[in-house]
Each structure stands twice: as structure tokens, then as C-alpha cells.
């Protein structure tokens, strides 16, 4: 059983085919400060077959939420101060999830590290199936990795767009003030950037700032 879960997890993470978890059921609580990304994670977990019993913002009463919702596992922001509240519950008894720092198979330590680097910390009740635990962490990790990639791409695209605007503006100013053609203005900008060891957009920004203050 464990080995099957293990293989399934790897296969499904690779293929992003999360449907194979439908048969498993584990009650998961998510505690996070960022409600938007948390909702997306909740959806991913649900489509992987986990039962998300609640999404709690860390400013809410975490202690009360855990006592009422009785999750088998908790995913929480690594940097949430409320983690200590979970630690307080973990010592009370077997019915509360405990912090997971290692998985039973030593080769999986890297997975827990990856999760931590992505900001996920996991708690699970004693007796929670190791295979299922691995799947839970793998699914959450894959989700955040994809999300981070998307965010990075989006930021890059936005940056490129902004740079283009700044360069155009600087070029236009040269055209206006120096009576240059667009092409000559562009070459002038490039030469100035090269001489100063700056990126074209950086130089354009400097030029515009100086223009604004003079």
C-alpha cells in the first residue's frame, strides 16, 4: 500500500495528473496569511482527493479551529507565528497533529526541505499513513513550485513591458529636445548605456529622473 502511494505520488507529480488520489481521504486544514494562494492550494488538494476541512487565516483563532475541525494533517506557512500554537496542541495527545520534519524514508528528506523552502510546514497526527503524508507534501510542493514559476514569468513580462515604456519615453524626449530622428535617439541611448555600463532601461530611467528634477 505504502509503496503504491509512493509511486503514484511521483508519477502524478511528474504528470500533474492529480486525479489518482480520489480514493484516499484525509482531512486537511490550511493555515496561511495569504488567502488567495491558499484558496488555490485548497482547490489543488481537493482535486487530488484530500478533504480540505478548513482554510484559516493565522490572525483567526488557530487553537479553536484545530480543536473544532479535528484535521488529520495541517499545512501552515513556515513563517506563521501561530505554529507555536500548533506545537502547544501537539503535546496534548495523539488526536492533534504533530510537526513533521522527516519522512520515514530517509531519501524523502529533500522533499521536506523543498516544502520548507517554498514556505510550507506540515503537521500530521500519529498513525497518518506515510504514503499519504508524502503525497500531501508532494502535491502542496508541486502546487507552489508551479505557482512560483507562473509568478516569476508574470513578473518578468511586466518588467519587460515597463522597461519598453521607459526606453520609449527617453527616446521621445531626445527626439523632442535634440531634434534627433527616432533611430539616432535610440543609438544615442545605447551608446550612453554602454559607456556607463548600464542596461538600456536603467539609463533611460536615469535620464528621465534627471530631466524631471532639472
Amino acid at each position: 500500500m505504502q509503496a503504491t502511494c509512493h509511486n503514484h505520488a511521483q508519477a502524478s507529480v511528474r504528470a500533474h495528473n492529480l486525479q489518482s488520489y480520489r480514493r484516499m481521504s484525509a482531512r486537511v486544514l490550511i493555515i496561511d496569511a495569504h488567502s488567495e494562494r491558499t484558496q488555490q492550494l485548497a482547490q489543488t488538494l481537493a482535486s487530488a482527493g484530500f478533504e480540505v476541512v478548513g482554510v484559516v487565516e493565522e490572525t483567526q483563532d488557530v487553537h479553536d479551529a484545530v480543536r473544532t475541525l479535528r484535521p488529520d494533517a495541517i499545512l501552515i506557512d513556515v513563517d506563521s507565528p501561530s505554529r507555536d500554537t500548533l506545537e502547544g496542541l501537539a503535546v496534548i495527545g495523539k488526536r492533534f497533529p504533530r510537526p513533521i520534519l522527516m519522512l520515514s524514508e530517509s531519501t524523502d528528506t529533500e522533499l521536506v526541505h523543498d516544502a520548507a523552502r517554498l514556505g510550507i510546514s506540515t503537521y500530521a497526527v500519529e498513525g497518518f499513513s506515510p504514503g499519504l503524508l508524502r503525497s500531501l507534501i508532494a502535491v502542496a510542493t508541486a502546487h507552489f513550485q508551479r505557482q512560483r514559476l507562473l509568478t516569476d514569468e508574470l513578473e518578468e513580462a511586466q518588467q519587460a513591458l515597463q522597461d519598453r515604456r521607459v526606453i520609449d519615453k527617453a527616446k521621445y524626449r531626445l527626439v523632442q529636445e535634440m531634434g534627433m530622428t527616432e533611430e539616432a535617439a535610440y543609438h544615442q541611448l545605447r551608446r550612453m548605456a554602454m559607456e556607463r555600463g548600464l542596461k538600456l532601461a536603467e539609463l533611460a530611467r536615469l535620464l528621465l529622473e534627471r530631466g524631471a528634477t532639472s
Partner: protein
Amino acid sequence: MTPHEPVAPGASPLAGPGTPEKTKLTIGFIALTDCASLVMAHELGLFRKHGLDVTLSRQPSWAAIRDRLSLGELDAAHLLYGMVYGVHLGIGGPRQDMAILMGLNHNGQGIVLSRQLRELGAVDGPSLKKVIARGGRRYTFAQTFPTGTHAMWLYYWLAAAGIHPLRDVNVITVPPPQMVANMRAGNMDGYCVGEPWGGARAIQEGIGFTATTTQAIWRNHPEKVLGTTRAFVERHPNTARAMIRAVLEASRYIDIMANRDRVAGIISAAGYVDAPAGLIAARLRGEYENGLGRKWQDPDCMKFFNDGEVNYPYLSHGMWFLTQQRRWGLLQQDVDYLAVAREVNRIDLYAEVARTMGIAVPQSPLKTERLFDGVVWDPSAPQAYVESFAIRA
């Protein structure tokens, strides 16, 4: 260093057998007044002086500190004394062999009760017992980490007044900066925490008063320590020695009372404790008020050095936390209290460094002490001590 300066043999920390094996370190801390000696070792250039390039990293929770020590993202940290033992024995979480290099401070924590409790007549342990015995509702108290020091001070103080902390009241774990807000919201009736989140803040906001300082529970009690994993010390003994040396120098600096306002100013910064300097400074100077009209100069305010008495990691201190963890059922069975303390507290490394600095090292790592209820902690009979308490798990 210029080429003209003569170099005394062995004087440079960068040469010889004492060279730190790892020089680039990240040390974790929590935003509390008692992180001061780590901050000052950094700010005064003492880590650098001893060949260490230290980055101080503020952490959001004790759980995060534990995890990052285990994962190797932190090399050492400001830690709750009892928590180190909790991790070493795997109480409520993953087990990891730990090491305590030195004590960081004594005293300076407090138990705060709400204004509502005062209105009901509770001003100290015995009067709190009466209020709770009257019934009506269940009262909730907070501490900062289940195996930590604040939990043990709170439990000890309640139990000494005849209040069973696990049966007569609810106890929850709350991050220090959230204590005041939680009490204002009515989520709890009292808490035990370190400065500056203890009395000063609660009194200022009019939501509570200091029922007791922890130094009034145990004069010169152990509190925070500089700790790491055992694996780190085994791999980097010279780095551990260099850390001890730098922090001892900082501790000595802070215990010169004339330096304390400067210390308060530095540690109050947004990157460190992030609290008003005045709030930190008053209690660092020993100026106390309890919010019930009593003001006093406390000779037992937070201490960082006290001629090394603060810093020597007495085995009996580690053993005391173990006895309390056993008392409250965090430890399911008796352990060899002395043997566990010997595993964790690196008195060998500490003593070696302290001696070269001319700092006194006690003759015995075991010390008999008496707490405020008159009960004597005799480290030669830890099991009998645990069993002597009528109120226990």
C-alpha cells in the same frame, strides 16, 4: 592589521589549533529583550573579533527555530531552556540530539493577569485560587511553547497556589507579540512571557497587571540559552568556542548597568526586538511597577553575566526542566536526569573558554536551590523531587 604590527603567537583567532572550522554563521533569535547578548556580540564586533562572520536572523516562532536548526539553515540560536530538552527527547515532535553551549540570561519574565481577574479579587496566587474555586466559568492562561520556560514558570506558580494547571484551568500556547492583543480580546485571563511583552506593555495598555515576576518565583533562574545541534558542535568545536567567547564578552558588557540604556536603544530596532526603547530600558534598569500601584527597584532584574554565574550551563538547571516536564506528563517516563543533562549541556567547552577569560567556573555542575514556595530542588534526588509534588499530571 598592518604589516608593522607584531603578532603575538596564538593571539590571532584566525591561526593555530583554535581556528573556527566554520566561520560564516547564521544565528537565530526571537524578538525578546533576552536576545540582547547575541545582538550586542554582533553590534560590538565581537563575533568578528573571534573570527566569525555572523548573520543574525529573526525568527517568527520557536517551531521555526527548531526546524531550521535541524535542517541546518541556522547554525545556532537563542532558545528556551526547556525546549532544548524537549527537542532532545522528541517531546511532541521530531527528536534531534541537541547541545546547550551557555546560558544567555537569568530572570526578567513575568506572569500577567487580566484587569477582569483583578476586579474579581485576584491579585496573587492564593487570591486567584479563590476566584477559580468560586467557579462560574473556566479560565484560560497562555504560555509561549509547551516545553519552554514560560510554561514551566506558569505551571509551577499556579500549582504552588493549589491550582492544577492541567485540570483547573485551560492552558494555550500563544506567540509573545500576540499576548496583549489576545488578552484585550478576552481570549485569555493571564499569561507568562518574557520582556518586553510582559508586564510593561499590559500595564501601559491598562489590560492587566504583573502578578509576579519570574525572579520572584526563583531568584536568578535559568531562562534562555545559546544552543545548537549536537552534530554541529561535534563538527565545529572551535566555532562553538568562538561563539561562547564572543557572547561572554557581550554578556559582560551588558551587565555593566551604565551600558544598559545603550543596549536598550540598539536592541529596540525594527530588525531586532522592534519595540519602544523606553519600554525595554526601564525593566533592563530594574525599574519595575506591577500595575497595582507598587513600584520598586528590582536587584534581580534581567541578568546576562553576573560573573559568569548566568552563563555556566549548570547540569542541575537542565535537570530541573526535565523534572518539570516529567511532572506535567510531557515526559511519559522517568529518565536518567543527570545523564540527559550531561548529553546536552556542554560544560566542558564552556569551562575551557571561561577559564582562558579569567571567568569563574563553579566547582560543581550541580546546585541546590530553593524556589519561592520553600520547596528545595536537590539535584541529587530528581525522582524524589518530582514525586514530592502533590499537584502533577
